[in-house]
């Protein structure tokens, strides 16, 4: 196992090298002039040349890249060109936590909801639960994230009464349905009457509490985790972006899991586990989920990378000070290459380490892959 991890770490180096070299080449292609951003359009040509020399921008791409690489190896990310005196490391330290927090809350929400729902839908394939959850997943997956973000803004910021009373009506309807089914069980002589009544009371109570304490969400902006305004404010400002990010992933994971688990459930070893009298929950969690976790984890890795690199859409909708905004607005648009280089390097490292960990986990999940390497 250690050898596998070691090999993965060795592989990290060429990937990061290729990514950073390609980044500097691409920035060279993108129009955007950092010196123009400093001196403005009224600046004197002599000033322009002086600044260009001072910043070393008169050198060619290869020389600049090697300079940058030399500094990086010593742990120096350099300074932002358009704002002299501000180090890139500081900017990264400010923006990375925002992006990572949104991505992690989103990913957590997605897994928390999709794994149980998807597995259960596969086990109860064809039932109302399956049809409802699969149908919802279908609907959700077809909503692009920027549209979902705008929809959430429309519902939770501009028209907060709609979801609030929606929750009230649905929650009360649910609890009435529970009471009704308790009555049906009572007449039919079935069990679980008390459980149903208790559930109805809990649902009604929760609904009323939630409607009473309905939180308001900001249209834009971000309160930091470490700020004085407290953790609650932080979560409040991260909630809508995280849900936006999570929505698509929930649906993607759920669909994958449902299809995969359903196929696995046809296998003989599941039949034999059933024949042995294992309870369904145990069969699902221990036997059926394990082979499916293979593809789920691959997908989750790709999804997380996409999420980290692609939060720029969510950051644009909610105006968040994250990595995407930093790289695109402060970096690419002005040609500020240390920002872009540093930002891309951090994102790429994160992504490659994550996927390396996933590859290692394959051999843990599927013993057949352990030999041969």
């Amino acid at each position, binding site marked *: 196992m250690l050898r596998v991890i070691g090999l993965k770490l060795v*592989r990290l180096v*060429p*990937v*990061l090298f*290729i*990514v950073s070299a*390609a*980044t500097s080449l*691409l*920035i060279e*292609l*993108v*129009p955007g002039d950092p010196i123009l951003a400093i001196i403005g359009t009224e600046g004197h040509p002599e000033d322009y040349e002086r600044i260009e020399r001072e910043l070393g921008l008169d050198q060619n791409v290869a020389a600049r890249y090697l300079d940058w690489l030399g500094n990086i190896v010593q742990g120096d990310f350099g300074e932002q060109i358009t704002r002299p005196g501000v180090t890139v490391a500081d900017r990264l330290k400010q923006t990375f936590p925002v992006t990572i927090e949104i991505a992690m809350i989103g990913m957590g929400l997605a897994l928390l909801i999709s794994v149980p729902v998807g597995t259960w839908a596969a086990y109860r394939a*064809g*039932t*109302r639960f399956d049809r409802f959850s699969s149908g919802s997943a*279908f*609907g959700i*997956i*077809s*909503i*692009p*994230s*920027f*549209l979902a973000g*705008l*929809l959430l803004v*429309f519902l939770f910021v*501009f*028209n907060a009464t*709609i979801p609030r009373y929606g929750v009230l009506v649905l929650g009360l309807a649910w609890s009435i349905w529970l009471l009704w089914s308790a009555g049906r069980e009572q007449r039919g002589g079935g069990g679980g009457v008390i459980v149903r009544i208790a559930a109805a009371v809990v649902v009604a109570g929760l609904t009323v509490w939630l409607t009473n304490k309905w939180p308001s969400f900001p249209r834009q902006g971000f309160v930091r985790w470490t700020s004085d305004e407290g953790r609650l404010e932080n979560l409040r400002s991260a909630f809508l972006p995280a849900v936006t990010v999570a929505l698509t992933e929930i649906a993607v994971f759920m669909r994958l899991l449902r*299809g995969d688990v*359903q*196929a696995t459930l*046809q296998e003989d070893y599941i039949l034999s586990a059933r024949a042995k009298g294992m309870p369904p929950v145990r069969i699902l969690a221990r036997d059926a989920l394990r082979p499916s976790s293979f*593809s789920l984890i*691959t997908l989750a890795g*790709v999804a997380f*990378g*996409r999420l980290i*690199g*692609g939060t*720029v*859409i969510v950051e*644009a909708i909610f105006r968040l000070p994250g990595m*995407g905004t930093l*790289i*695109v607005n402060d970096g*690419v648009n002005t040609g500020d290459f240390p920002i*872009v280089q540093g*930002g*891309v390097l951090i*994102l*790429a490292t994160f*992504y*490659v380490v994550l*996927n390396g960990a996933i590859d290692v986990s394959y051999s843990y999940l599927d013993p*057949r892959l352990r030999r*041969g390497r």
Partner: protein
Amino acid sequence: MAVDTALVPDTGYVAGTAIDPLSHAQRLIRLAVGLVGGTAAVIVGLMVLTDVHAGYRVLLTVGGLALLFMALDNAGKLFRGPLFETGLWLSVIWVALIGLSAAFADFLPFTESRDASVTIFEGTPILKRPDLFSANPLGTDRQALDILGGIVYGARVSLQVSVLAVAIGILVGGTIGVVAGFFRGRLDTGIGILTDSLLAFPPLILLLALASVMDRTPRNMAIALAVLGIPTYIRLARVNTMVFAEREFVLASQAMGASRRRIIFKELVPNVALPIFSYAFIIIAVLIVAEASLSFLGLGIQRPDPTWGNMIAAGQDDFDRHPHLVFAPGIAMFLTVFALNRVGEKARELWDPRQANL
């Protein structure tokens, strides 16, 4: 036909036997109620109530459409048997409708949706609310451009770009993936490093760079999106190849002395191709979203050519008071992506071997 519904799992049918859980009479009643109630609700919502809050009208119309769907569903199951998939057929119809109207957009009688100087000259009001029986059925935007026309021309761009991108992606990514998955070893490591680099690269910067050196034409957008999709295809094909390469029939073929080329082309490619192809519709849907996201960020195809993304981006600033600017193109895109996903799901059910043996 009276069937005890408690004994039959609530799937609408029992595999093979096609017993309808609802009786003939029940279906007829639902059909009639849905048809009458749905039509009435839609008419009242769209035409009769004009001075009520828009929210109630939307609610009423959506409710009416749901009733109409119920009527259609029951009619289909009544006349075509209980296995009839109403949603699937509606999806096929929608995809066909969007495809045809995109193809023949130039011959359709839309009011101007591209050139703002024409609408100024004609004096079309800006930010007109949707009114189905006017020259601008879905309203106009801030520049008095027709939204319905924009949606149809946007559909043309989206479909062109995404279909082309999927074709390129499958061809290039699939080939590389199968090779990597079969030969393993150093070649696989090399391809793995390249894939990782491509995937580790923030897609936006890649697209930005590509977009700034190339003209933002549909063809170039397709190439850029295909580049983004290729690593995913490589991984999909590689993992599938690895799984199939472990199977007995490959071992048997090896034992019989088959050449590596024969194993790849006769044993692996047919098995790997089908699951990959069956994802094509779904990936087209994903790419439509990707293209729209790019236009939304202003990195895709630019005005005056309308795309769903740039229409929504332009409507974003006014959408608390004029939600139709965002939701009209948004719903069109949602329906298209939804329909493609629905059709794609059926394609996977038919062609993906893992799905087929249910």
